């Protein structure tokens, strides 16, 4: 198994350990050993968009310095592809990386600011795990599937930060297909959703705007259901929280609303590759197990 550096981010270690656990299992199925970055720090969750704010790029870049160190210390196999699963961490780390690559002056300033760290050489590539799977090849991934999820209708939800802005996102921002390819590789059936990349309301879930999130959850989940989907998969922990947990508020506002499981793509991969004990199906708000039992993918 090839050793790759891995950035978990805070959610995979705390609120969504079912994402973290199933991520490690999914990587194993793809013959990858994830080596967690020693002493990683929070990326900041959102990318700083003002041109004069360098301070908030320090945290992401410091993580990339750690990847450099991992290579020097032989913790990974001369591997500069940093694997990330969380869409938001992926976006933030990649944007900071691209910014310092384009702007050597900015890189120099950040390096001088982090005077207790070695200089960042901008050699790391920030990669989302879906890209890693695509690079390995869907045919090869398909061969790792022990339990094809035949007949399961899944709607992919991309959200924002996996796709946009252009140059950072992992697929066409208007017509992405990578998650549908993933669903097919797992033996399941992809179902299209016109709102697959509509913003779920993001951090407006904090404070007085929960209704705004509930409205978008209503729209996204309903569209998936109308197109025949039985569940939604995503790779963003904030989208997952909004589309899954906020179905409670959605149901309160729209009593006729029918709830639907929204789970991480890695949970599906752990199940399909025969590692359902590591899929963490008890971690989601809307339980997907009754549906998976109905299909015969889970016993009991």
């Amino acid at each position, binding site marked *: 198994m090839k050793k790759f550096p891995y950035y978990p*981010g*805070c*959610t995979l270690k*705390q*609120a*969504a350990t079912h994402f973290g656990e199933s991520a490690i299992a999914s990587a194993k199925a793809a013959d990858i050993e994830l080596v967690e970055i020693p002493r990683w720090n*929070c990326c*900041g*969750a*959102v*990318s*700083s*968009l*003002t*041109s*004069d*704010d360098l301070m*908030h790029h320090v945290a992401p870049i410091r993580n990339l310095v750690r990847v450099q160190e991992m290579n020097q210390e032989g913790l990974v196999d001369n591997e500069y592809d940093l694997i990330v699963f*969380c869409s*938001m961490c992926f976006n933030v780390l990649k944007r900071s990386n691209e910014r310092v690559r384009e702007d050597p002056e900015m890189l120099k300033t950040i390096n001088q600011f982090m005077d207790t760290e070695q200089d960042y050489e901008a050699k790391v590539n920030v990669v989302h795990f879906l890209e890693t799977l695509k690079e390995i090849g869907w045919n090869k991934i398909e061969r790792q599937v022990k339990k094809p999820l035949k007949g399961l209708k899944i709607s992919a939800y991309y959200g*924002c930060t996996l796709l*946009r*802005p*252009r140059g950072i996102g992992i697929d066409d*921002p*208007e017509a992405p297909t990578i998650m549908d390819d993933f669903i097919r590789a797992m033996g399941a059936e992809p179902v299209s959703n016109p709102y697959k*990349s*509509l*913003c779920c*309301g*993001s*951090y*407006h*879930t*904090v*404070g007085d705007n929960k209704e*705004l999130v509930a409205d*978008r959850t209503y729209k996204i989940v309903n569209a998936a259901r109308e197109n025949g989907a039985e569940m939604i998969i995503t790779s963003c*922990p*904030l989208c997952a*929280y909004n589309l899954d*947990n906020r179905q409670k508020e959605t149901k309160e506002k729209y009593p006729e609303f029918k709830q639907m499981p929204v789970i991480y793509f890695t949970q599906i991969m752990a199940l399909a590759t025969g590692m359902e004990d590591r899929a963490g199906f008890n971690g989601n708000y809307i339980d997907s197990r009754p549906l998976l039992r109905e299909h015969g993918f889970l016993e009991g």
Partner: protein
Amino acid sequence: MTAVIKVKKKNREFLLKTEEMSGEHITMCEQCGICTTSCPMTEDMDISPASIIHLVQIGDEGVLDSTAIWLCASCYTCTVRCPRGIDLSAITEALRQQTLRKSIDYIDINSIDRKELEELPAIALVSALRKYTS
């Protein structure tokens, strides 16, 4: 026929400041409105995304009091669609920052119920605090 909008010096300073902070050529916007039609928050906003840009173009600082600039969640849908290549999400960030940098927060985290805070994942809290507070 060329229409010319004359902007007063004081108002021009606000435009230039916002251009510098956002790194965007705001005067390039021709008001086609694709940002407004693409924005998932338009229906909840007091002014439209295209109006945000227009107000900055004419140097109207009143745009800082709109709720629209705070509803923009940087989803980048307008960014990938703008025919002039303008990143409106960077502009709304520059506008929010002009308030936040005076140590004026948009939400008071202490007003949020403790139980609710405990339920929220770190990713929600960190991103909300980064966007709403100084």
